[in-house]
């Protein structure tokens, strides 16, 4: 560790191999890391394809993120545009297709650091909401990037509640055009990605008016920039909304419309149409459309929510195995901070959660695949369940993973605060997921609405969707566990979760009923119960996650030690949840005070068990050093050298700051003359 000052460090080679503190962690793995990686990928073939894609992307210098932490907003944006353009070329060159097996790994490999993500949403909304003619006209242009699209829904004053949007589109029968307007400042479109600088077109959501009558919110294709010189079209005011906590590479934008006229054909009219004479026609079912919106929430979970937590765990756990601080036993060398129980208690539950969520994400995808098939056959029965699941799990996972990444950040002490650790960027990016695609509290209330309905149906003996049949199983009783080992029996803790989830749904439903019967208006009663409703929705999702983890572990083959370590993680995830929400489980005496002490003891024991495999468990996530982009989290564990090398690359060390000549020197000088 005594070498200093060679520039080889930056490449991660010539570092003299793996830090012995990390190497020793890997020698004692109780399971096959490669085996677990393939389980996570869903098979060896997937692992192979993923690695191949990652390798191609990372070998290409255009996709390098080496200087990312030193770049300004302008530089980040330009790099993202450059990468997006280059990616088109690359995909063509490699023969990767949007429907090919490689596609899902590309975004992961570029770490999301590309522009034109909203271009895809633009295309999808046309595909889903547009008529066949509209699809035929616009999709080829978009595919060839002859135009760049965005998706303008959110306004300055309006977010999740769509009916409240204020932008207007008034139909003018004389010219067969819609006239779009932003009637006031709060109606300005605000936040849409790619709109501030890049987009030439956007789908604008506006209140449709025909002959003075409002027909509600509809989508319109609006050109906002010239295809020739990219200047703004007449009547359009657009720009970047300014710096944010992250997404410096994306030009989230604002858009103001002043008497912008678009042809009648630019209203997306698969489901609704305004005829030349102004007659408004609604046709078909929009349900399939809701389904699309719902799938977006599920599709973002893996890349935007679960992967960041996995990365944060990888960085924090590897660093904790390298960082030594203070002594556990007098006379010994300083201990790895991973050996402190308090450090394990911060990190290992996050690690368990990352696995739990990976598996529940698989469950959700299966649920949606099945649902999709039914919907294709025009059977919409599963829609409410799919909607409730996507809302609830998006909210729970994004909230949990955001908190988890922050815990990892803070568990790395001072160095976690450096951008070079990679953790601040992971955090500021993931936390946006708590808001976009539906604000979490509102989503949880939607899930709760479904639960309350299903609970009523189940109580009345009516059939309910599969994921909530447990609500019918109300039975009083006590947890039968007798000692701390009983709590390592999945039947015991799954039952406890189920009991608590039922209790919260049923007591909230009862309270709601009581309020309404006592004369409180329905909406007022609902508002008065919302805190409890949110709790019930979370308990439901938590229960499903635990149950699914247990079932996944049972199905794993018992080879190479994988099932065993996954069982430990599953136990940890479940017991940590009870330990952290003790009040909910103690409430009606289902779990006794003495049992809670057993749970705590079992939970703390598990930390020591999983500690031994902590590093192999993050290695199994199989992130390359480039994708982690962290001075603390690299595979070889040469943390300090890398931190020092990277810091020297900082522009603050490369350029001379004018501050000394301009301010410091005069200050020091003045004082000299006065003394």
């Amino acid at each position, binding site marked *: 560790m005594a070498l200093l000052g060679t520039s080889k460090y930056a490449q991660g080679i010539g570092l003299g191999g793996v830090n012995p503190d990390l190497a020793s962690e890997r020698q004692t793995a109780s399971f096959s890391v490669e085996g677990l990686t393939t389980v996570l990928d869903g098979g060896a073939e997937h692992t192979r394809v993923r690695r191949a894609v990652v390798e191609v992307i990372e070998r290409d210098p255009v996709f390098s993120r080496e200087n990312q*932490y030193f770049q300004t907003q302008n530089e980040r944006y330009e790099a993202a545009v450059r990468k997006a353009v280059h990616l*088109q070329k690359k995909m063509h060159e490699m023969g990767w297709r949007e429907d090919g097996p490689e596609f899902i790994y590309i975004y992961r490999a570029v770490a999301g650091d590309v522009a034109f993500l909203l271009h895809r949403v633009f295309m999808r909304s046309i595909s889903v909401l547009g008529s066949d003619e509209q699809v035929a006209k616009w999709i080829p242009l978009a595919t060839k990037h002859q135009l760049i699209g965005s998706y303008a829904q959110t306004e300055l004053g309006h977010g999740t509640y769509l009916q409240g949007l204020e932008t207007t589109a008034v139909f003018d029968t004389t010219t067969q055009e819609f006239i779009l307007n932003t009637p006031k400042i709060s109606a300005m479109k605000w936040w849409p990605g790619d709109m501030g600088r890049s987009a030439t077109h956007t789908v604008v959501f506006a209140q449709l008016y025909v002959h003075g009558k409002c027909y509600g919110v509809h989508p319109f294709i609006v050109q906002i920039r010239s295809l020739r010189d990219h200047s703004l079209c007449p009547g359009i005011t657009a720009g970047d909304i300014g710096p944010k906590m992250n997404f410096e590479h994306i030009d989230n934008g604002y858009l103001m419309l002043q008497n912008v006229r678009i042809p009648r054909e630019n209203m997306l009219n698969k489901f609704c149409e305004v005829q030349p004479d102004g007659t408004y026609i609604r046709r078909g079912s929009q349900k399939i459309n809701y389904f699309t919106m719902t799938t977006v929430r599920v599709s973002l979970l893996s890349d935007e929510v679960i992967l960041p937590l996995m990365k944060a765990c990888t960085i924090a756990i590897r660093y904790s195995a390298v960082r030594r601080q203070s002594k556990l036993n007098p006379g010994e060398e300083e201990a790895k901070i991973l050996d402190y129980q308090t450090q394990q208690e911060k990190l290992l539950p996050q690690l368990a959660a990352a696995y739990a969520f990976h598996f529940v994400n698989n469950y959700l995808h299966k649920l949606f695949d099945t649902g999709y098939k039914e919907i294709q056959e025009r059977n919409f029965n599963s829609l409410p369940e799919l909607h409730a699941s996507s809302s609830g799990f998006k909210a729970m996972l994004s909230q949990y993973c955001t908190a988890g990444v922050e815990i990892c950040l803070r568990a790395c002490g001072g160095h976690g605060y450096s951008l070079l650790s990679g953790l601040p960027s992971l955090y500021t990016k993931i936390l946006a997921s708590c808001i976009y695609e539906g604000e979490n509290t509102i989503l949880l209330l939607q899930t709760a609405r479904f639960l309350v309905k299903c609970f009523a149906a189940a109580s009345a003996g009516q059939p309910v969707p599969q994921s909530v049949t447990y609500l019918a199983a109300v039975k009083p009783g006590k947890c039968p566990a007798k000692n701390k080992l009983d709590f390592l029996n999945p039947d015991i803790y799954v039952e406890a979760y189920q009991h608590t989830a039922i209790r919260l749904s049923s007591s909230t439903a009862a309270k709601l009923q009581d309020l309404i019967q006592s004369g409180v208006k329905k909406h007022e009663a609902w508002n008065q119960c919302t805190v409890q409703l949110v709790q019930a929705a979370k308990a439901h999702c938590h229960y499903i996650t635990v149950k699914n983890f247990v079932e996944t572990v049972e199905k794993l083959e018992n080879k190479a030690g994988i099932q065993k370590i996954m069982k430990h993680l599953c136990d940890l995830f479940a017991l940590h949840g009870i330990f952290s929400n003790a009040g909910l489980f103690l409430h009606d005496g289902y779990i006794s005070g003495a049992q809670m002490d057993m749970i705590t003891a079992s939970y703390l024991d598990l930390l020591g068990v999983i500690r031994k495999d902590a590093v192999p468990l993050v290695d199994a996530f199989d992130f390359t050093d480039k994708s982690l982009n962290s001075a603390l989290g690299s595979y070889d564990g040469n943390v300090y050298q890398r931190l020092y090398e990277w810091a020297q690359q900082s522009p603050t060390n490369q350029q001379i700051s004018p501050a000394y000549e301009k301010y410091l020197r005069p200050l020091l000088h003045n004082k000299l003359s006065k003394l």
Partner: protein
Amino acid sequence: MMNADLRRERAAATFQPELLTHILDGGAERTRRRKEIEALVINDPDFQHEDLNFLSRSQRYEQAIRKSSLMVMKLREYGIADPEEIYWFKRTCLGNFPEPFGLHFSMFQKTIESQATDAQKKKWLPLVHGVKIVGTYAQTEMGHGTHLRGLETTATYDPATQEFILNSPTVTSIKWWPGGLGKTSNHAIVLAQLYTQGQCKGLHAFIVPIRQLGTHEPLPGITVGDIGPKFGYDEMDNGYLKMDNFRIPRENMLMKYAQVEPDGTYVKPVSDKLTYGTMVFIRSLIVGDSARSLSRACTIAIRYSAVRHQSELKPGEPEPQILDYQTQQYKLFPLLATAYAFHFVGAYIKDTYRRISGDINAGDLSELPELHALTAGLKAFTSWTANAGIEECRMACGGHGYSRCSGIPDIYVTFTPSCTYEGENTVMMLQTARFLIKSYNQVIAGQRVSGMVSYLNDLSRQRIQPQHVAARTVSVRINDPTSLVEAYKARAARLVEAAAKNLQAELNHRKSKEDAWNRTSVDLVRASEVHCHYVIVKLFTAKLSEISNAAVRAVMTELCLLYALYGISKNAGDFMQAGILTDAQITQVNQRVKELLAIIRPNAVALVDSFDFHDTHLGSVLGRYDGNVYENMFEWAKKSPLNKTEVHESFHKHLKPMQAKL
């Protein structure tokens, strides 16, 4: 013109916000003086500058140096010398951002004052006061933080030349993080392991020149620079420092306590407990900072929630203010109550510190260990809570909270390192736990303990009469803060005892004390947390009787109740498991919390107005006093660097060529 919603909110308040402001400031006269000093900055065109969010890191650093230099001049010009008044002045100027000179005036100067001999003071202090030199304090190393004994930098005495030779022997020993070190300072106090006559004498402090006066170039043997971009602290040049056989004269070791004589003989220090005092002081500042940072975030979130309308509560009616949603109140009002609680705790520690530092000078150190233990835990408790609370406030502002214009991202990134610096929070909690366990063991041994831990005395009585275990259940009246203090006290007693017993059980099973301690540390941290929680509820409750104005006292009592009951609701497991509250009572508590939300609702805006943050200091478009949020967001965004040209250069560089090719 003020936003109509905010005007209505303010008109409906049941108390006068100024009266509450006076309580927070410690008297009407102090409020007046504070505002007077703030006005000096706000009305001074020299302090105007572009919104920092639009500047690069280097530009932000440059601005900060400009302001730092300017503040030195202006403070002198105005003759402001009182530390609190200086703090008000700087806070208004910096808006809670750090300044590169921060460590010069705090740690560099303070360490010389406390650890230098009279001769050293005479030499260095005039240079420090006159800013003839700029200094920093270099303790933390890349591989070593809170555990000071592990530091690796060496200072080896050479009697031949009467110099110390300073070295950074490993990568991990490079000094890392000190503020102002990277670019600003020309001197540093360096903490290093002292070697003389072949023996290591432990950590000592040395004054080390690092840059050439006049040219500002690093001196030969010194490698110094900036550690690169961070989560926040853009204006601060946190730095690294590596020394290779760098020599300084013997007189540069701070020698008030330990000394190295010219021949290399080491003279041991008389024991000094006084360093405790400095730590207590700095940690008490962090408690105050937790309160203020959380107050700022609450101000922004609550004002914005009164201005923002969304969705519908009643079918057919206009969109309601989001502050009318129970879930929004449930997010924000407990945090508002917490902010007030922390203000009072911060004031308590400061007063106690002042009182007993008088005693310390008179030689009475008896109260210091408890205060030291308590401030460690409270520093951790309040900074953790505020850290999470600021984020909740940001989330409660939805998408706009994520924009830098909300000001909350800056509050968060500036505040969050306080969970780590001046003692990592988990380590702090364990320090408090050590004191609690020690006190518990004293009680078990038949001694009585005093102060905030005196409740442990009751445990020994229960031990003698085990049949009276039921006496532990206090009959809790959920509308009486004093009764709730008792409930928190019972919870603390129970969890301290449980941790102590678990520790004992581990000790019975294992060989080493350290191992047992580590295996109990999650319990021990819990014990400290509940102890701190009790102290906070107790201090908040005690404050109520000091409030003379009935209207203010009424609203503070509601907040105090909300703080205490929300804490019970969130930690219901503890109270039920210990038999302090039944599940029926918990249900009542949950219900009461929601009633209190509705009771506090009409005063919410007035309660944040009472914090009296000037818009300049708040630095938030969402939290503006006049509530004109949307217009000003638009104005702000227009200044974004991406908007400097209408067509961004990347269009010509990348987009156009791509479209041409495809």
